[in-house]
């Protein structure tokens, strides 16, 4: 396992008792405010020193309280993007960015200042000081600073919370690239289901200092019972492959023989991608739909209907591409006679497969 964490830290105010293993990739810590995400990340970074803990990134043991091992933060070679930026007020943006480079100078890695500056759109800020930056600007610089330290693992504590959608959409791909190209493990704290879906290899859900759920992203997200932030967050993740780039700007994916159309993707033909289909974006039909503006229609059959507390129900549909979840009203479920084994068509609008919900791998 790439990331192995077991931390027990009990204070008067809060008890943290977490253990999980995660493979390489992005491990997203997911949980409500106050559930202990920051506390856990601090333990990994060595900013707190839990009495009982074993923390390792691959064979790089950061702490093993039984063996008496505890690396101080500066020896951990981690890049921490803090929830509140923590830029050095006495340095310019450029100097802030360069801060970690010195310590990383002998380590392998090809990340350059220019590349980071470009990617984060902070070229115009380089000679300014942090105090004059807007909230979002600060956070972008903090991300760049961590990246330039060529870390063995990136820790990111809600790095995008202060950013606008456009910036988020710009920066998210870079975390993906960290995962896919640089092949750096990432421990990422987030509230946002869209971020989780897009980035997570593994999801670790925290509740009041304990792990309430842990597993591969597709599995956890595809579970209709996993609704940590409300039903809107339910959705299935499908594995697919780029089949063709069409001239009208659409990319055709092949999900186990089923064609899915999306707006132009950057991936090459043949590359694997993950597609998240939010349950509330799926319409079910008993008849084969015709004359609809939706391009993605998958035939399958109902495997489960789970009524929720409210007026809705989650319907699991087995399709050749994998399981797809659909959220419908109980009224519709009754009207359409949805029940286990019933054949249905799942209608997904092309554009409702949102860019945030597609992650290359």
């Amino acid at each position, binding site marked *: 396992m790439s990331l192995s964490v077991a931390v027990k830290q009990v204070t008067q105010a809060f008890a943290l008792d977490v253990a999980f293993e995660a493979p390489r990739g992005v491990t997203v810590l997911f949980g409500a405010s106050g559930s202990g995400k920051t506390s856990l990340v601090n333990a990994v*970074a*060595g*900013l707190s020193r839990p009495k009982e803990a074993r923390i390792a990134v691959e064979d790089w043991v950061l702490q093993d309280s039984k063996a008496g091992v505890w690396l*101080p*933060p*500066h020896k*951990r*070679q*981690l*890049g*921490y993007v*803090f929830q*509140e930026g*923590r830029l*050095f*007020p*006495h*340095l310019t943006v450029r100097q802030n960015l360069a*801060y*970690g480079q*010195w*310590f*990383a100078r002998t380590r392998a890695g090809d990340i350059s200042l220019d590349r980071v500056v470009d990617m984060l759109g902070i070229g115009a800020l380089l000679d300014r*000081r942090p*105090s*004059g930056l807007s909230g979002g600007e600060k956070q972008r610089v903090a991300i760049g*600073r*961590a990246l330039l*330290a060529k870390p063995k693992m990136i*820790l990111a504590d809600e790095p995008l919370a202060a950013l606008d959608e456009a910036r988020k959409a710009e920066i998210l791909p870079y975390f993906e690239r960290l995962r896919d190209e640089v092949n750096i493990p990432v421990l990422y704290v987030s509230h946002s289901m869209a971020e989780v879906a897009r980035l997570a290899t593994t999801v670790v859900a925290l509740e009041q200092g304990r792990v309430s759920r842990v597993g591969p992203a597709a599995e956890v997200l595809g579970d209709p019972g996993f609704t940590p932030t409300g039903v809107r967050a339910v959705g299935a993740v499908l594995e697919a492959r780029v089949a063709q780039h069409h001239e009208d700007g659409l990319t055709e994916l092949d999900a186990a023989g089923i064609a899915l159309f999306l707006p132009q993707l950057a991936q090459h033909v043949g590359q694997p991608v993950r597609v998240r289909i939010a349950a509330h974006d799926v319409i079910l039909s008993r008849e084969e739909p015709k004359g609809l503006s939706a391009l993605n229609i998958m035939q399958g059959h109902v495997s489960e209907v789970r009524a929720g507390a409210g007026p809705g129900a989650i319907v699991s549909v087995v399709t050749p591409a994998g399981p797809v979840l659909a959220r419908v009203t109980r009224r519709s479920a009754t009207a359409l006679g949805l029940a286990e084994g019933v054949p249905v068509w799942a209608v997904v609008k092309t554009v409702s497969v949102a860019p945030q919900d597609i992650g290359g791998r």
Partner: protein
Amino acid sequence: MMGWLGPEEWSAVALSLKVALWATIWALGPGIFVAYALARWEFPGKQVVNGLVHLPLILPPVATGYLLLIGFGTQGVLGRWLAEIGIVFAFRWTGAALAAAVMAFPLLVRAVRLSIEAVDPKLEQAAGTLGASKLWVFGTVTLPLILPGVLAGAVLAFAKAMGEFGATITFVSNIPGQTRTLPSAIYSFLQVPGGEDAALRLVAVSVFVAMAALILSEVIARRVAKRVGGV
């Protein structure tokens, strides 16, 4: 102004500047170290160290001078030992600087300590996660951030060193050209009837020098503050 002060007085001014400058320089390193230790470390005997640092402030200067004499005089415990390795304070300007440094030390430590306590440890943590060792963090984050405090402390120490009299004269006496600082000269004039005018001239020089140091430090501090916190 050349004609305004006699040559002896000029030499007192020059000596005072030298003594105060060196006193400040000597006090700076240990002062920052002690301030850091008091601000950020827990160790047994911390209160004792803290008390010792403040002693020169609490004692009448003459008593401090007397203790220095016992310790660092040619017959003193440390003085004898230091003399063997060629370091002599007694009746030298170096002794005047030592006395001034000791007297200024608590002021310096206090100022620096306060500003260290005002540095957000979260910034130091951030530097740590980026790979900086404690020492490196201190040099690249803590120290730059406390510069205004260090500067303030140094100017305070310098001013105090310029004004130090009791400990200096008791420890190294008053030898023209060697240990006869401005305050000694001022004191001398105040001891003779009608010497006030001459004393006032020297007071004016003292004030001028110290004011210049103060204003300079303000200007620098402002520039630093601007760099750190401002526009």
